[in-house]
């Protein structure tokens, strides 16, 4: 069925990723810009697969310190108590605030993991030139693109707590090193999702060398 379908690439055209104008592809190797908006043209995002793999692996490495190191330290009457992401979730469950526990668990633990797993899955299926349920895989890609930003919620909570609970010796909250690693995981996975080109999912009949 795919033989009959015309894509910009097999027709010698390039769609401008900024203004979506269809442009004629020039000589291979030449730098081309869109005649309408001046953006550099690429048939596919450059080095999409390698770049995405590199970012996914970096995020996986940072995911470990993000979960092991404390993200906040509560100092109350001279005593300090450090919390990691998971211990924060467990604290909420024990104090009966399970909706909040659920929000934090989904945003900080489940979403980053899900995103990494989905990106690995998409990368592997693209590299194997799989033709399996392309439409659903494109949908999975859209999900990874949308959900990533919501993981930042924990970082914002830390910011607000640090600003509000600052009463000297009585009670204060400090941000921990885990927060920096966690923030890095969120940002790196967002870049990973951006560098993946969903058109590769549909490029099963052509070579994926770009």
């Amino acid at each position, binding site marked *: 069925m795919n033989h009959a379908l015309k894509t910009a690439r097999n027709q010698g055209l390039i769609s401008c990723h900024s*203004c979506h104008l269809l442009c004629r592809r020039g000589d291979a190797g030449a730098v081309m810009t869109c005649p309408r908006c001046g953006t550099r043209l690429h048939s596919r995002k450059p080095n999409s697969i390698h770049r995405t793999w590199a970012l996914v692996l970096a995020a996986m490495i940072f995911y470990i310190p993000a979960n092991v190191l404390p993200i906040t330290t509560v100092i109350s009457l001279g005593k300090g108590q450090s919390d990691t992401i998971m211990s924060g979730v467990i604290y909420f469950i024990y104090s009966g605030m399970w909706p909040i526990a659920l929000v934090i668990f989904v945003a900080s633990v489940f979403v980053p993991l899900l995103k990494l797993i989905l990106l690995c899955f998409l990368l592997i299926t693209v590299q194997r030139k799989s033709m399996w349920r392309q*439409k659903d895989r494109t949908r999975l890609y859209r999900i990874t693109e949308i959900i990533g930003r919501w993981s*930042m919620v924990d970082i914002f909570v830390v*910011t607000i707590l640090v600003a509000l609970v600052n009463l000297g010796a*009585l009670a204060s909250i400090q941000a921990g090193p885990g927060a920096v690693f966690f923030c890095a995981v969120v940002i790196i996975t967002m870049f990973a999702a951006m560098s993946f080109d969903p058109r590769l999912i549909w490029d099963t009949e052509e070579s994926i060398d770009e």
Partner: protein
Amino acid sequence: MQSLIACHECDLIQRLPHIHDAGTVQCIRCGAVLHQKKRNSIERTLALTVAGLILFSLANSFPFLAFKLEAQVRQTTLLTGIKELHAQQMPELAVIVLLTTVLVPLGQMLCMLYILLPLKFNIVPLGLPRVFRWVRHLQPWSMMEVFMLGILVSVVKLAKMAKIVPGIALFSFLALIFVLAAMSASLDSHLVWEKWEEKR
């Protein structure tokens, strides 16, 4: 050639049907949204941008939460939180929070204003393609709605510890996230490119 378009998600070439009034065109193969047309797109987006800028200045000049513990009261604006992170040797976090909740949303609204206000009067602003590209690149990094969820979580977290009083800025924040979402949804980028091509 004009009405032909390649889907940005699956590269399929298809004819873009003409939309008279308002509607959405989806890719026939992968379902990606190819074109979204709104009535009075430019005027509507411009109005929402101006509303957004007003709400943004309110949200950043007043405290959004106050924290009462015994005799002590602490109020916080968005910027004090960022300063506190910086003071605690967390400059990386301070920069990220500053970017995602202050600078990027502000930059996005200013870019929109720069493009849409002249277009409203049929003038094409200098460097439109570049500025319009910035708007698109900034989009994922504007995290106002995520910050709002963060406020809710912190309120619940602190409610046991002390009394939490919502401030004016909290309501501005709430309104702002809806205005920002509507602003992005009402923009018809094809229309902007068409105008650019006409006037060039």
